[in-house]
């Protein structure tokens, strides 16, 4: 079924060498999953968590703007590391998928199991579609600047729309004390988040409540615009962090290990 033997012969690898090569790949995969799963989730919760923790906080002005800008950073850096060093167009998808998986785990374990928040209220947003767009464009065009301009824009632009299905039911109107509210509003009014002050219980207000549908298109376009620059900057951040620079060590330290100049 597989042509493993031919591949090994072409690479000049013995079975033992191939086994060690595979073990090293496994180590790298485990390290990437655990490190970036944890760090990307930490990064997003501390920079954009307030717009994503709860379903009723996902307004149409800031959530589709801030979350994708924050969530494109590590995928862009990973894309640079995988592409420049291994010619693998998978980094953005890996980063976006790790973010979703980690946040799902944390929403389940920390929010639902520990503090009994209903899961329908805390489902995480997903950015995997954006990651696939970035990697797909990188695979086809093989140019990070092109991917940054077009893929970066699409990453931010599609975010709201690919996440629309899970939040759609919460826009349904309900009557509450003689006024029209949304299901999301009702969650904000009634669910006890004891440290959340009154003033943010109505997330969307003013003209946003009336003209939210058009606002969302402008927000998506603005988000895409910022994501272009975020992607390009973080691509270079990824390359900078993947450098293999060694500085000269102190002679005394080296001599302690039996090394001479």
């Amino acid at each position: 079924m597989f042509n493993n033997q031919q591949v090994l012969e072409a690479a000049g690898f013995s079975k033992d060498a191939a086994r060690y090569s595979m073990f090293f790949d496994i180590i790298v995969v485990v390290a990437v999953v655990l490190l970036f799963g944890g760090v990307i989730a930490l990064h997003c919760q501390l920079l954009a968590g307030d717009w994503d923790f709860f379903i009723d906080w996902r307004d149409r002005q800031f959530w589709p703007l801030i979350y994708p800008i924050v969530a494109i950073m590590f995928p862009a850096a990973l894309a640079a590391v995988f592409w420049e060093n291994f010619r693998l167009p998978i980094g953005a998808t890996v980063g976006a998928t790790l973010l979703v998986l980690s946040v799902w785990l944390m929403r389940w374990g920390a929010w639902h199991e520990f503090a009994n928040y209903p899961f329908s209220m805390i489902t995480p947003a997903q950015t995997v579609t954006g990651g696939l767009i970035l990697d797909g464009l990188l695979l086809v065009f093989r140019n990070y600047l092109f991917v940054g301009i077009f893929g970066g824009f699409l990453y931010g632009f599609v975010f709201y729309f690919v996440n629309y299905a899970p939040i759609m039911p919460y826009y349904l109107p309900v009557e509450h004390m003689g006024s029209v509210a949304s299901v999301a509003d009702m969650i904000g009014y009634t669910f006890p988040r004891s440290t959340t002050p009154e003033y943010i219980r109505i997330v969307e207000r003013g003209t946003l409540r009336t003209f939210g549908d058009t606002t969302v298109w402008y927000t998506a376009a603005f988000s895409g615009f910022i994501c272009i620059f975020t992607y390009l900057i973080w691509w270079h951040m990824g390359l900078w962090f993947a450098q293999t620079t060694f500085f000269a060590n102190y002679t005394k330290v080296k001599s302690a290990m039996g090394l001479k100049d």
Partner: protein
Amino acid sequence: MSTTDTLPGQIAAKAKPDHKVNFTLMFTAMAILYAIFMAYRMYLGAYGFEAGLDSTSPEFETYWGNLLIYQLPVLFGAGIVCWIYLIATRDRNLAAITPELEFKRNFYLALWLCAYTAAVFPLGYAVEQDAVWHQTVMRDSPFSPTHVIAFYAMIPIYLFFGVGSFIYAMTRVPEFSRGISFMHVMGVVGPFLILPNVGFNEWGHAFWLTEEIFSHPLHWGFVVLGWTALALAGVLMQIVMRLKDLFPVVFKLETSK
């Protein structure tokens, strides 16, 4: 390559291969690590809301005050003992190391880094757990139950592996002893600085109880320092570059059929 091209160390390696890596070490370390994390999570589930709401209460002192007081010397002490052991048992003749041994030690360094990353992941979880706490309960102490776990247990545990990986590399892997890996320094010092940054965070929260804004600027220090974890990609690249040279040398004798 014919056998006449081989080095004396390689012939000895064929007679008694010393490039064999004991991978069970990694699985054992990870199993122990995650058993500890699960124990912390279960403890929080059992005594978080039960005994952690009022920092002036006797039960808070029993379950959270005592945990804080005992875990700090144990976790930091374990790290210090391990780091001293690594320095004391260092290779004092790295210049004479065989390619097989160097190959093996590069693998062990990768395993150290893998364990480090395994210890970093629960920090992300613990911080999310802390967000839950702050969205649910008004803090009355910087030593809240979620802080006792996130800051004073998770950070010492990943420092154990982070600093350990650096000392291991410096004392046993020639490439990392001849030169100081800039990215290894970044990848260890950056996450380490999260611990003193807790001081800035708690200093700010002493006045601003911004529970409703988790993305508050007081938390951005954690974010920027968390970015330095990306530097471990550079360390892995350094190992990859060295293994690329060592693979043909270590396995050439076994390649010919």
